[in-house]
């Protein structure tokens, strides 16, 4: 027998191995796309989390108790996958176009982005998945117990103790796996790859045990067949009603279970993968169930009577002295259970945080208040994971861990099946509305609780034995297990029938008797016609919102980098430079979809509505929904494309024209500015030199003072000429760069020291993260320092905060190093943001500010030479300059080529 400690060590080693794979893959996925990561094979393997410990251990137990009936659990999904283009394809397509994050999100998005619906589905999911998680905990602690039998005595150690350690371990594991990073997308590449590996492990383990049983213990397939016939018991009869019910139930489960939705829809990288999965996944199901019957009958033959059939997969190899095989089987079962728990907990945590925690937080706080929503989301998810696993543990404790594994799983199936009417209505019935959905979900939820979930704890635990036997207050037709006097032999089928029937009835009645809101009509058309509508209708009217406010909000949810990239891309698509696009309906729509990928449709909609001022479904939108004959659709979408193109061209022209006008004005201004800047110091020089020359009676100290003024002004003149020369050399591209290797940290140190001489009386707090600055760069250090000094000096001069502060943030993005300088002053007004990099564009007329107004213009030229740029970043709570440059400047970039390339590209 394998010692218990070795087993524990193997488990830990296995977990570390999985985590390493997930970690490495996630790191690599960050940097580039990995082709094999988003392949149909990985997708299919990840779907196998359908096969949990229930399959691995429970199926054999099921076979021992009820014969071939266990097959129904795999027939349902097989049917769904073979007919994938009926339902699955539509779900995946809608999931993608609407950026759905969970099943609760999909249903809430369809019914007018109603968060109430999201909350109901979330509660339902948490309640339904609880027994399912308990099932996994039970199987892991049982399998541990098998190995931990005290030698000699045969006594089991404390099962409850094992379960609590397993729960805690899984919670830590899941938090590490699923909520390690702040990610705007709900995709977890690392987790998917870990599941795929576990899928292989559990399949290999079960096939190995199966092969051993068939060819090692029994004398081949014929012998197994004989043993099956010999062991046949009356319980193994096929009951057609129960078979049909279970096939239906498992088909529904694969659509509605939160973890299946997560891998099927949310993690789906490409719709075409479904085509492969449609045959490959049923094949996987076949392989994993093919040896169930042989293991069951051989187990019955070789094991003593009374052995737990749920553990035959483990007990048969152990009883026959195959320790290595037993170990493999143990790891297989461990894989099956852990992968289910991880994905289920992640899926539920996403729902709880998106539909309960974040909306509550938004309602309690003013939307304008600052704060990073991402951190809140992450913490909410971590707490939710702990809560979900604790529920599973409690269920396991209260039910006493005695139920058969399959029975616990079926309770969960029936619970989640309550989402079916609302889901199918969402996909196919445009008349369905949120009143109906809420009614159906609530009724189904309640009936399931009453007829199946609460009684599952056993008589006298949550429902008294009297109530179960006699009905509440002795009302016979309300007995939980025979509603309306229909006494079925099977409580499961009874609950399934009544909960779904009443659910569907309430759903249809509610939808038919009430009217949908405009937003529901629009969403209903989008869902039902997801394959036909390409452009879609819009939920926002243009104007009103300030792009900068939206950027500030988006940064809190998506993180600064991601949000800025999104805004920059949107602005570029409109033909604008910079970070602030026009707030067109298209842009708002895109932004909402992007946000809903992070916090769910309902919350994203509410957050944008708070800034834009109410969502507007226009009459045109409703008309568009109403008149959607193919012809009109096509015609209008062509028109729309045309007008889109026209308005884009117009916008580009307008911008080019504005730029030209500004340039021409600036050319004139430049000449007269130069004249002014040269003549001003010259005036003092001339006046004082004449005074010194003509007035003989000057006191010596007066003479010295005037000579000093002449000297200062002469220096000022020289500096101006230097700047002008510098700029003209840079602009003409004749500059020679001195490339050297230098540490970024030293360079920033140098710049901070050098800029300290500007306005030395101001106390400036500088906030840096030294660790991020530990980068060696290869560039013209002197030129780069010149830019840093300029930006820092400007902040010292112009930052108007009472306690001035400067934030310096460094990060590496691909080949570029990005340094952000953000002060806490009032920033630069929007109308001036485009001008500051032009020559002589001093924003205040304070001559005292020094400099000739050429600093930023020179910076811009230098950064072009260093293969990057300097830009103003709006919406950072102060003046913010972003300096980006190539970490390693290739020799070819030196001199004029860099400038020429850039111009050609621009």
């Amino acid at each position, binding site marked *: 027998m394998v010692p218990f400690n070795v087993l524990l060590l193997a488990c830990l080693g296995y977990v570390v191995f999985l985590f390493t794979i997930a970690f490495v893959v996630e790191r690599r996925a960050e940097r580039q796309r990995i082709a094999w990561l988003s392949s149909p094979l990985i997708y299919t393997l990840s779907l196998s989390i359908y096969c949990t410990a229930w399959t691995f251990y429970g199926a054999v137990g099921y076979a021992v108790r009820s014969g071939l009936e266990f097959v129904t659990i795999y027939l349902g999904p097989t049917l769904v996958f073979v007919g994938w283009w009926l339902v699955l394809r539509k779900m995946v397509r809608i999931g993608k176009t609407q950026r759905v994050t969970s099943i609760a999100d999909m249903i809430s998005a369809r019914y007018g982005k109603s968060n109430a619906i999201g909350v109901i589905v979330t509660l339902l999911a948490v309640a339904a998945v609880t027994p399912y998680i308990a099932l996994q905990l039970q199987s892991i602690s049982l399998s541990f117990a098998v190995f931990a039998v005290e030698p000699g005595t045969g006594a089991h150690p404390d099962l409850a103790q094992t379960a609590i350690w397993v729960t805690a371990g899984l919670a830590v594991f899941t938090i590490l796996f699923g909520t390690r990073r702040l990610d705007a997308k709900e995709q977890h590449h690392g987790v998917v790859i870990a599941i795929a590996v576990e899928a292989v492990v559990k399949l290999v383990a079960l096939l190995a045990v199966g092969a051993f049983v068939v060819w090692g213990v029994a004398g081949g397939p014929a012998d197994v067949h004989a043993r099956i016939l010999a062991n046949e018991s009356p319980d193994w009869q096929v009951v057609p009603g129960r078979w049909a019910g279970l096939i239906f139930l498992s088909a529904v489960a694969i659509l509605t279970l939160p973890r299946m939705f997560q891998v099927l829809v949310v993690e789906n990288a490409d719709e075409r993968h479904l085509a492969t999965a449609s045959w490959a996944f049923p094949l996987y199901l076949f392989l994993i169930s093919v040896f169930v019957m042989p293991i069951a009958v051989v187990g019955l033959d070789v094991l003593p009577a009374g052995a737990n059939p749920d553990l035959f997969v483990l007990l048969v190899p152990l009883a026959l002295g195959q320790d290595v095989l037993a170990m493999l089987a143990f790891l297989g079962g461990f894989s099956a259970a852990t992968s289910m728990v991880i994905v289920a907990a992640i899926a539920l945590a996403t729902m709880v945080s998106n539909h309960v925690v974040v909306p509550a937080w938004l309602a309690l706080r003013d939307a304008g208040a600052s704060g990073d929503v991402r951190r809140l989301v992450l913490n909410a998810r971590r707490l939710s994971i702990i809560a979900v696993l604790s529920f599973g543990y409690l269920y396991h404790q209260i039910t006493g861990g005695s139920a058969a594994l399959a029975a616990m799983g079926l309770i969960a199936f029936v619970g989640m099946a309550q989402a079916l009417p609302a889901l199918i209505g969402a996909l196919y019935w445009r008349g369905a509305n949120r009143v109906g959905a809420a009614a159906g979900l609530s009724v189904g939820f309640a009936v399931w609780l009453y007829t199946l979930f609460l009684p599952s704890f056993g008589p006298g635990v949550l429902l008294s034995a009297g109530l179960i036997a006699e009905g509440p207050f002795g009302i016979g037709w309300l007995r939980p297990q025979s509603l309306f006097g229909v006494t079925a032999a099977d409580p499961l089928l009874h609950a399934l029938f009544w909960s779904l029937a009443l659910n569907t009835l309430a759903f249809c009645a509610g939808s038919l008797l009430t009217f949908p809101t405009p937003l529901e009509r629009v969403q209903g058309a989008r869902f039902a016609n997801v394959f036909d509508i390409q452009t879609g209708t819009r939920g926002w009217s243009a104007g009103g919102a300030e792009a900068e406010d939206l950027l500030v909000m988006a940064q809190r949810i998506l993180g600064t980098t991601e949000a800025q990239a999104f805004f920059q891309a949107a602005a570029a698509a409109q033909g604008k430079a910079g970070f602030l696009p026009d707030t067109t309906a298209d842009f708002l729509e895109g932004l909402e979809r992007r946000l809903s990928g992070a916090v769910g449709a309902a919350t994203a909609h509410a957050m944008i509505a708070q800034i834009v001022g109410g969502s507007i479904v226009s009459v045109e939108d409703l008309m568009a929904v109403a008149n959607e004959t193919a012809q009109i659709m096509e015609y209008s979408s062509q028109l729309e494309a045309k007008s889109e193109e026209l308005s884009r061209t117009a916008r580009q022209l307008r911008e080019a024209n504005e730029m030209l006008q500004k340039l021409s004005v600036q050319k004139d201004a430049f000449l007269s500015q130069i004249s002014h800047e040269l003549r001003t110091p010259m*005036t003092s020089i001339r*006046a004082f030199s004449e*005074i010194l020359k003509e007035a003989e009676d000057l006191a010596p100290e007066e003479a010295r003072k005037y000579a000093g003024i002449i000297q200062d002004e002469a220096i000022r003149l020289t500096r101006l000429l230097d700047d002008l020369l510098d700029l003209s050399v840079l602009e003409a591209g004749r500059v020679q760069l001195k490339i050297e290797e230098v540490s970024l940290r030293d360079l920033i140190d140098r710049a901070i020291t050098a800029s300290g001489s500007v306005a030395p009386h101001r106390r400036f707090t500088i906030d840096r993260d030294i660790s991020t600055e530990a980068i060696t760069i290869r560039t013209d250090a002197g030129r780069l320092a010149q830019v840093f000094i300029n930006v820092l000096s400007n902040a010292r001069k112009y930052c108007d905060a009472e306690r001035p502060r400067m934030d310096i943030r460094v990060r590496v993005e691909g080949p570029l190093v990005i340094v952000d300088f953000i002060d806490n002053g009032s920033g630069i007004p929007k109308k001036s943001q485009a001008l500051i990099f032009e020559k002589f564009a001093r924003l205040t007329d304070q001559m005292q500010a020094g400099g000739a107004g050429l600093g930023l213009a020179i910076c811009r030229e230098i950064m072009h030479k260093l293969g990057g740029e300097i830009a103003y970043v709006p919406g950072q709570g102060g003046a913010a300059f972003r300096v980006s440059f190539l970490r390693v400047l290739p020799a070819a970039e030196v001199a004029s080529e860099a400038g020429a390339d850039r111009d050609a590209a621009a």
Partner: protein
Amino acid sequence: MGRRVLVIEDEPSIAEAIGFILARDGWEVQSHDRGAGALELIRAQRPDLVILDLMLPGRTGLDILRALRAEVETAALPVLMLTARNQSRDRELAESCGASRFMVKPFCNTEVLASVRELVAS
């Protein structure tokens, strides 16, 4: 004949130079370094001549000149305009607004002195 001059000029060293030249010639010189508040100062001090720079922070010299010419008390006040931008457009503008004389920087000290004397005498 009054001998009080107000210099409105934002470059401190230029203001100092003019102040020195005029003071040595016996003028009483006051200076002000921005456009804002210049009008109020002229009304309060009632100088005999104003030397006014064209480009000032706060309010331009042209603005101030227009305002002076619009008021009865200062309509005839001699104003010597200074500018560092040698553009004919600036000169025309200044003259149309009622500048008594227009000088381009850098100037010759004796020329400034002569202009001041002439303007006050007339």
